[in-house]
């Protein structure tokens, strides 16, 4: 294990280094080293995951020490990896989707031979960073990885840097993330100040076991600061603005980083720090509130967007909001559950959208698609699976996780979270099927020039799609599996598989929170909640079905654009708000570019004219006074003599004064 665990992260790093140095010469063959390293990393990760989940580690976790990173007296940070069950869960998602995206990219990036090696190098670097993030055993290591994934995100969003929008989007992503990072960094500092250690386990132990008054920094503040970091990375309101723009990056990047892995880091972080949050209930309410607000905000925007990837991006935001809502109400298992399932089906959807875009020659506007179901069937079917999964129709993955979130929220007393969540669920189903409808159903609106060339993607792309479709179908069932043959037929002696795995992680947090996850009662409240969930999902789907056409097997219908227009005309404000993303970008533009720019320009003016002006002014005054004094030197002897005489008189006077003392 001492070698295997570092290798999980180390292999992609090695792949990055090698590809970055010699990749340029490999040209089209540049993919094989990165893919190989990630595949190996995946294999090793599976071994480690298996060991971890089968209780192979004494005490539930295994730590690998590498070296003393920062030995600054009392401030001591080790470079070390730790694997426990939570890490294991994340490892599954990260390595699996990572591998599939790598494979997919072999095909997807084929038309960009110049950037081929660069793309894979970046991807590898990202894999390393992300794995470092989940494996790191100290806050600071996590923070390093936190920044590194941000860097990779920056590099990959701006991959096509000649496009100005891409360059701008990448910068925006990094900077908005930095806002959250500042909070996170301050949180880390606060943790160290309070506890004197940055080891995650130790510091949490100290923070949550002693009297709260003893700390210089209140624990609620710490929780909020850590959450600030999570908000940035997981794009929660108001730091959500970067994620939609991040779609400027190549689609595999969107799938891997901006759907399945990196954006989940915030969720992971909060879950990791669960005892801290458990000690600060107010902070948890904030988390829940921001989460569910983001969920509905993003869902509302997703309903009107026309760019296929942006719809998915807002959907991601919305789903991440769900996860935070779950974290906030204390349904931590549900959050991680949703994280995992969402990773797969959203990854699938993104990769599918990539396939679509590929098919229609880099067109992302859904208004220029339609009727593609026949032409790209693999893509169509896999994306349909993803859409159903995200909408929450049993027995697909999304149903289980989403329902668990909503159910727990209701049962833990956060009825408002549940209520909003239900609305979001309707909207989710609606916009997903709007997407499917606009893209695949109805008449083709594809550009006439492109129309004949529309084609299915190569195997190397479709196989990963199918490989992702499988977990989208069954992962929920597996992870929620309550026991040998369906929890002795829903007698449910033990919680779901995932819940069992994660039990030790939450143990301490639950103790602090003073409650346990409620008993599952399929024929009680739970049954009702499940039915509600299914109903709203179906409702949303049906609505979209009505408006955007039907074309599943025997079911056929026509899109009804007129009705769509009429509907949107009924709620003009909401429609425009949604279309303009509630004007957040405009607000930011005003705040940071217009006003911020003015402030900066003023500051510079201040620097040049006032600060430096004073400096130069002193110089000028000195010289000018020199010039003034030089006037005394008239060139006339008598003037000089008079000066001397007056000087003599003054001196005589002053001596008389001195003498008179």
């Amino acid at each position, binding site marked *: 294990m001492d070698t295997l665990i570092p290798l999980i992260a180390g292999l992609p790093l090695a792949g990055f280094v090698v590809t970055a140095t010699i990749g340029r010469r490999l040209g089209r063959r540049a993919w094989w080293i990165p893919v190989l390293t990630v595949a190996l990393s995946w294999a090793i990760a599976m071994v480690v995951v298996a060991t971890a989940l089968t209780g192979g580690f004494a005490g539930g976790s295994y730590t690998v020490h590498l070296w003393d990173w920062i030995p600054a007296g009392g401030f001591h940070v080790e470079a070390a990896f730790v694997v426990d069950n939570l890490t294991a869960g994340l490892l599954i998602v990260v390595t699996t989707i990572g591998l599939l995206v790598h494979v997919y990219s072999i095909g997807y990036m084929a038309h960009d031979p110049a950037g081929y090696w660069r793309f894979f190098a970046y991807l590898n670097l990202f894999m390393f960073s992300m794995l470092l993030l989940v494996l790191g055993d100290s806050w600071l290591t996590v923070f390093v990885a936190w920044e590194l994934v941000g860097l990779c995100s920056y590099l990959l969003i701006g991959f096509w840097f000649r496009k100005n929008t891409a360059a701008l989007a990448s910068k925006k992503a990094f900077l908005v993330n930095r806002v959250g990072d500042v909070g996170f960094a301050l949180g880390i500092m606060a943790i160290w100040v309070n506890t004197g250690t940055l080891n995650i386990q130790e510091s949490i132990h100290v923070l949550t076991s002693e009297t709260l008054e003893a700390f210089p920094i209140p624990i609620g503040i710490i929780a909020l600061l850590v959450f600030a970091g999570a908000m940035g990375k997981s794009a929660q309101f108001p730091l959500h603005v970067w994620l939609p723009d991040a779609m400027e990056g190549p689609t595999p990047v969107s799938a891997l980083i901006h759907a399945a892995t990196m954006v989940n880091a915030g969720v992971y972080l909060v879950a990791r720090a669960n005892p801290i949050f458990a000690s600060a209930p107010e902070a948890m309410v904030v988390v829940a509130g921001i989460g569910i607000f983001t969920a509905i905000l993003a869902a509302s925007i997703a309903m009107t967007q026309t760019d296929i990837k942006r719809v998915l991006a807002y959907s991601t935001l919305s789903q991440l909001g769900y996860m935070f809502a779950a974290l906030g109400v204390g349904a931590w298992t549900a959050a991680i559950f949703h994280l995992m399932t969402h990773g797969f089906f959203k990854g699938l959807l993104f990769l599918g959208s990539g396939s679509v875009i590929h098919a229609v020659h880099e067109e992302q506007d859904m208004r220029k698609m339609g009727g593609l179901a026949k032409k790209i069937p693999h893509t169509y079917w896999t994306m349909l699976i993803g859409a159903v999964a995200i909408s929450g129709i049993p027995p697909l993955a999304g149903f289980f996780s989403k329902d668990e979130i909503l159910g727990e929220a209701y049962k833990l007393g956060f009825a408002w979270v549940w209520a909003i969540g239900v609305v979001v669920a309707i909207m989710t189903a609606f916009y997903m099927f709007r997407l499917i409808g606009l893209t695949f159903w109805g008449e083709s609106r594809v550009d006439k020039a492109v129309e004949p060339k529309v084609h299915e993607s190569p195997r190397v792309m479709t196989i990963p799609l199918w490989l992702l479709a499988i977990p989208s179908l069954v992962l929920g069932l597996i992870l929620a599996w309550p026991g040998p043959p369906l929890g002795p037929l829903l007698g449910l002696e033990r919680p779901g598989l995932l819940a069992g795995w994660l039990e030790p992680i939450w143990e301490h947090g639950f103790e602090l929170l003073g409650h346990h996850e409620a008993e599952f009662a399929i024929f009680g409240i739970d049954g009702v909640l499940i039915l509600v969930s299914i109903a709203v999902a179906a409702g949303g789907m049906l609505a979209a079905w009505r408006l955007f056409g039907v074309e599943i097997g025997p079911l056929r219908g026509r899109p009804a654009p007129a009705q769509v227009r009429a509907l949107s005309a009924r709620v003009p404000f909401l429609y425009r708000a949604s279309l303009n993303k509630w004007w957040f970008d405009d607000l930011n533009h005003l705040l940071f570019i217009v006003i911020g720019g003015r402030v900066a320009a003023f500051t510079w003016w201040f620097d040049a004219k006032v600060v430096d002006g004073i400096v130069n002014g002193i110089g000028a005054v000195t010289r000018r006074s020199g010039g003034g004094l030089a006037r005394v030197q008239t060139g006339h002897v*008598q*003037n000089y003599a*008079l000066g001397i*005489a*007056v000087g*003599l*008189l003054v001196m*005589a*006077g002053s001596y*008389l004064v001195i003498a008179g003392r």
Partner: protein
Amino acid sequence: MRAWIYLLAAAIAGAIVTTPALLVYVLGGGTVDDALFAALATLMLVSALAVVTMRDIIRCGLAMIVSFLALAGIYVVAGAPLVAAAQVIVYIGAISVLILFAIMLTQSKAGPASLVFQTQAAPAAIAAIVLAVLIGVGVSATDWGAASERIRTLTEPLARLLFDEYVLPFEVVSVLLLAAVIGGVFIAKRETGTEPD
């Protein structure tokens, strides 16, 4: 006609000089010395004023000689006849003559300049008056530890002093004069042209 004017001027001058003497002697009840002193002092000051105020520089030079002469007289009154003699020899015999020569050499044909004084004559006068007042006040307010009777300086002790205690300055003064002469000659002589070398 002209002669009369000169005579008149001489009379006025004589009156100016003798009036204080008479005043001192007759009204102030002073001694002859006092009267002499007053006369000479007046003569000296008046001629000194003439030196600094008269338009024609040659007359200034002549007034200076008068002033020096009056001063020599005062030295005699003060009991330093040797100094008085030296005054006559050095100042009148040497310096004044030098100055008069220099005046001749430097008078441009255009005659005396239209302006005698600088534009700053008024501040100069004020400064001079303040200076005089300061000196006068300072001097009178000071206890010099002076003897009530003046001491006559005899030539012999003076000579002894000069060649004993003050022999070094005496010698050095000669060096000084030598230096002045050598340098003065060099500066004042006409350009000899570029020297061959």
